[in-house]
């Protein structure tokens, strides 16, 4: 092709590789810092290469209670996992059920229900912080997994997405199910769900990341550190009061906190890109 220029291609590759290195740089520095002792870190500026601690700092934070938090990072990671899975699975389940009702049934108030769900898009947790906190506190759900999960489980996006998908299901399928005498639950479980597999996978990736990376909500409702998530705990570790910040611990925890979602995104990249593009339509 006439308009290709090999020189420009080479330049493009070089610039891309350079940017990839720049994006990786903060993680690299976290990794090297996490392999030193605090005394070594504070002898000068942060080292660019690994220290002698190896994975000892990682093992230490996973095994022993960390500083003022009083819980180990394995507990924090477990909390994050419960919250992320709870939110992802919960959102998908109630969205599938709601979308199924709205698309395949004819009943009074159908559109009203759909719009009621849809309007919640305009009410992110950040804008209704205080009253939601009061509701959760009145229900006695502070410092509990239910309190972490339930208020974030409604999803206009997921409901909308499943609705769009169900609308494309050919009416012949429904007709065939009727001829075979299938009831509403049988139609949902045996026909619709198998068809929705890719959509479920794509949404799962997006919602898992959403749940894992939540900050404001867990920060507010967990005063007991036994229920804090890994992401939220970092601030308490990094603001060490009078002492020097124990960066080797903070960085080891930060890396452990970012590893699961990054692993999900990299291994399920195909679904992730689909989920991202679909859920923003």
């Amino acid at each position, binding site marked *: 092709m006439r308009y290709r220029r090999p020189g420009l291609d080479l330049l493009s590759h070089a*610039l891309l590789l350079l*940017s990839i290195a720049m994006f990786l740089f903060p993680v690299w*520095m976290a990794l090297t810092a996490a392999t030193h002792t605090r005394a070594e870190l504070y002898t000068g500026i942060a080292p660019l290469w690994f220290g002698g601690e190896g994975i000892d700092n990682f093992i230490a934070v996973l095994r022993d209670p960390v500083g003022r938090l009083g819980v180990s990072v394995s507990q924090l990671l477990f909390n994050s996992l419960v919250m992320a899975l709870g939110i992802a699975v919960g959102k998908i389940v109630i969205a599938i059920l*709601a979308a199924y009702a709205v698309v395949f049934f004819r009943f009074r108030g159908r559109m009203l229900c759909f719009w009621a769900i849809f309007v919640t898009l305009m009410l992110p947790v*950040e804008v209704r912080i205080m009253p939601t906190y009061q509701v959760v506190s009145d229900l006695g759900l502070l410092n509990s997994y239910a309190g972490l999960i339930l208020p974030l489980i409604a999803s206009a996006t997921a409901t909308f997405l499943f609705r769009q998908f169900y609308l494309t299901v050919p009416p012949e399928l429904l007709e065939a199910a009727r001829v075979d005498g299938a009831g509403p639950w049988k139609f949902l479980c045996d026909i619709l769900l198998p068809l929705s597999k890719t959509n479920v996978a794509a949404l799962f990736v997006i919602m898992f990341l959403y749940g894992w990376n939540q*900050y404001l909500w867990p920060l507010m409702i967990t005063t007991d550190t036994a229920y804090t998530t890994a992401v939220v705990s970092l601030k308490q570790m990094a603001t060490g009061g009078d002492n020097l910040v124990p960066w080797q611990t903070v960085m080891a925890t930060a890396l452990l906190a*970012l590893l699961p979602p990054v692993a999900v995104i990299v291994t399920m990249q195909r679904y992730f890109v689909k989920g991202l593009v679909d859920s923003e339509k």
Partner: protein
Amino acid sequence: MTTFQRHRFTPWLLLAPQLVVIAVFFFWPASQALYQSLYVQDPFGLSATFAGLDNFIQVLVDPEYRRALGVTVVFSASVALLALSVALLLAVLADRVVKGARGYRTLLVWPYAVAPAVAGVLWMFLFDPTLGVLSAMLGTLGVDWNHRLDGGQALALVIIASVWKQVSYNFVFFLAGLQAIPKSLLEAAAIDAAGPWKRFWTITFPLLSPTTFFLLVMNTTYAFFDTFGTIDATTGGGPGGATRTLIYKVFEDGFVGYDLGASAAQSVILMLLVGALTLVQFRYIERKVHY
């Protein structure tokens, strides 16, 4: 029409979980926010008197609120513009090289998975005044970096951390948008002797404009709401309110200062803002459908 579609009870059973959750955790709190925004509570929370729009007026004349609004505008505009331009540049480069575009996507997309708070902490380490690599580098250039004391530097820190995370998101959409542009158009322009620079600005960029506009809305929403974690974990709104955005102020007034009326009034203002953003987004979607 099949028989079960006429069931009366089943659809409500199916909708029940979703409706209960949105009623308890969305509509009830939102109505509470509206109610509280119209009342003034005494410091012990024992009685409330109707105050009309007093809370709103007080919020809007408060110089601290206006300052937070200013910080939010500067912060959001910087994050959106930087994240969009860096992502566009990278996407154009990745689109050119044909071979390996997918590989580059893998290597550039992962920061999306990093929590905003974690992104903040990673960058805070690089800019740490005592042992940060970047602050040391700036030191040799004669810049005395200490984001704990200097408001402008603190704002720069949260902007950099937010952009670092958001570029990956924009990159995915720009790359998809670029790959959807018919190559024949670009080849035709090349035959007419248009150079790469001209081709980009006269063909690629206009054709990408729906994507760019959509991303602009999404990036603004991101900068408004999702960056709370970045700000709280790194600067905590400081120093002296230099990184206190509107969301951060709602949180501070309500949760730390316990001024319910003011916090609720701010929440209502934010709801209106999100409503407006959502409407803009919808108009855009309609346009795209008719396009």
